[in-house]
């Protein structure tokens, strides 16, 4: 019987330099696809909620900006269009003389027709319907509206004029903004909770699935952090891929919604997502993967500490 001898280095075949394979097998792992699908679904909902939050906040901000410091004065139609135009111009001139008012502009008949076109259709300047005259008043920046004083001035020129300070709108928009925020944040929190629970479960399942390998590593002297790190990286990769799929689906849905929305664009202003919104949306898969990595690592460490 030949006793084995250690070979001389020169006789020994060289191993090709390559990256160390992970001791945890990923191919054919049924948990991998499930976690990826969960991540994709969660990312889709989270990103959709982020889009709603970002677009809603942006929209409300635009509306607020448009209405803040603005007053609209309406002069009911008398049936004599020329007289209505003269009265509107006179009132605009009188208002511009006020210290509170930066600018007062009487809207022309075509402008007013365009405003009501989405509801009544094109009037083609026929004057077939008597339209009220509108005066767009912009207040001096930072000025507090003295509604009573403004009303006295308006009534002194056109007694039947009605003032709309958009207070109801602004208040309603504030409520709408808060509702949208609460809804979106609730969806985000629920999705986050679902991801944390799913990833925690996936980590424990992966530990059970790879128990044999984990035991071998453990007996060979692998520290808990090493094994938890392997699981964390496994979960990170899967949730990142799933998150990117969810992002792609959410962007496709946004694009589709944009195309459908363009049909009613005359009623609703175009939805825009600000820079901060885009940053949050585009980094959502990475954020989700990092949270998942942390959860998987923590769950794995807790499970490993229960062993010898």
């Amino acid at each position, binding site marked *: *019987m030949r006793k*084995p001898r250690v070979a001389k280095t020169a006789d020994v*075949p*060289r191993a090709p*330099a390559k990256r*160390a*394979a992970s001791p945890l097998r990923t191919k054919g792992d049924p948990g991998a696809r499930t976690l990826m699908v969960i991540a994709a679904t969660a990312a889709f909902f989270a990103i959709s909620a982020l889009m709603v939050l970002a677009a809603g906040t942006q929209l409300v901000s635009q509306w607020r900006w448009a209405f803040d410091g603005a007053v609209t004065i309406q002069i009911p139609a008398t049936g004599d269009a020329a007289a209505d135009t003269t009265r509107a111009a006179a009132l605009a001139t009188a208002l511009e003389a006020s210290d509170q008012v930066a600018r007062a502009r009487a809207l022309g008949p075509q402008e007013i027709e365009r405003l009501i076109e989405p509801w009544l259709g094109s009037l083609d300047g026929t004057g077939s319907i008597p339209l009220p005259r509108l005066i767009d008043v912009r207040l001096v920046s930072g000025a507090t509206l003295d509604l009573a004083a403004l009303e006295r001035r308006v009534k002194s020129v056109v007694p039947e004029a009605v003032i709309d300070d958009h207070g109801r709108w602004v208040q309603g928009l504030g409520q709408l903004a808060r509702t949208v925020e609460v809804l979106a944040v609730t969806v985000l929190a629920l999705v986050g909770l679902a991801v944390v629970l799913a990833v925690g479960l996936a980590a424990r399942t992966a530990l059970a699935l790879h128990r044999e390998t984990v035991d071998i590593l453990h007996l060979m002297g692998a520290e808990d952090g090493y094994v938890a790190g392997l699981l964390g990286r496994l979960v990170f990769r899967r949730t990142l891929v799933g998150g990117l799929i969810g992002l792609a689906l959410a962007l496709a849905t946004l694009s589709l919604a944009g195309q459908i929305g363009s049909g009613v664009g005359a009623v609703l202003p175009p939805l825009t997502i600000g820079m901060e919104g885009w940053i949050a949306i585009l980094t959502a898969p990475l954020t989700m993967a990092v949270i998942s990595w942390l959860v998987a690592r923590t769950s794995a460490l807790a499970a490993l500490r229960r062993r010898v």
Partner: protein
Amino acid sequence: MRFGRSADILTDIDFAVEPGSFHFLTGPSGAGKSTLMKLMYLALLPSRGALTLFGHDVRKLSRRDLAATRREIGVVFQDFRLIRHLTAFENVALPLRLSGIDDRTVNRHVPELLDWVGLADHLDAVPQALSGGQQQRIAIARAVISRPKLLLADEPTGNVDDRLAMRLLYLFEEMHRMGSAVVVATHNEALVSRFPYPRLMLERGRLARVGGGMAGRDESRGRQ
């Protein structure tokens, strides 16, 4: 040693393994050899008594120190316990990677050792593509790659013919000459009788000493 409320599996075990020594651990099936081996490679901790490895009471070690102690022990498991999806190269490289050895050193040492066990042509083979004997040699290469202070082999000759069993024991003898303390658990009395090394004999969970060489300074000391 006992599990839960069960009867003692090992009782009054008291022995020491010197550095660089070679021992056989023998006894009939069910005598407690595997349990004693599990205690020695720290898959289990004693339910009472003391187990001292490399001068440390293992029950007082932190988890990190337990892991570090395990890295000083090479184990050849009865069922090999190779990682099925890793190649022979990667299986053997694992202990080095766990010890933080750089890739260059790993790429140099692993092929050398696989050549030593006669598997130089199977670096990229996964275990299931190899025979039982070849898998066992990978398991041995993995156990010795990091030059462990203590090398434990649990029934390494259980599923092989006499010729291969002798070859395996020569491999362990070679490691013993290179400085590792070696304990081989086996119930193959005929094989044990061919080597001049002392034997620890277990019977019904108790240790019956046979042969000499068990006195002296402790390297790995078990008392149960």
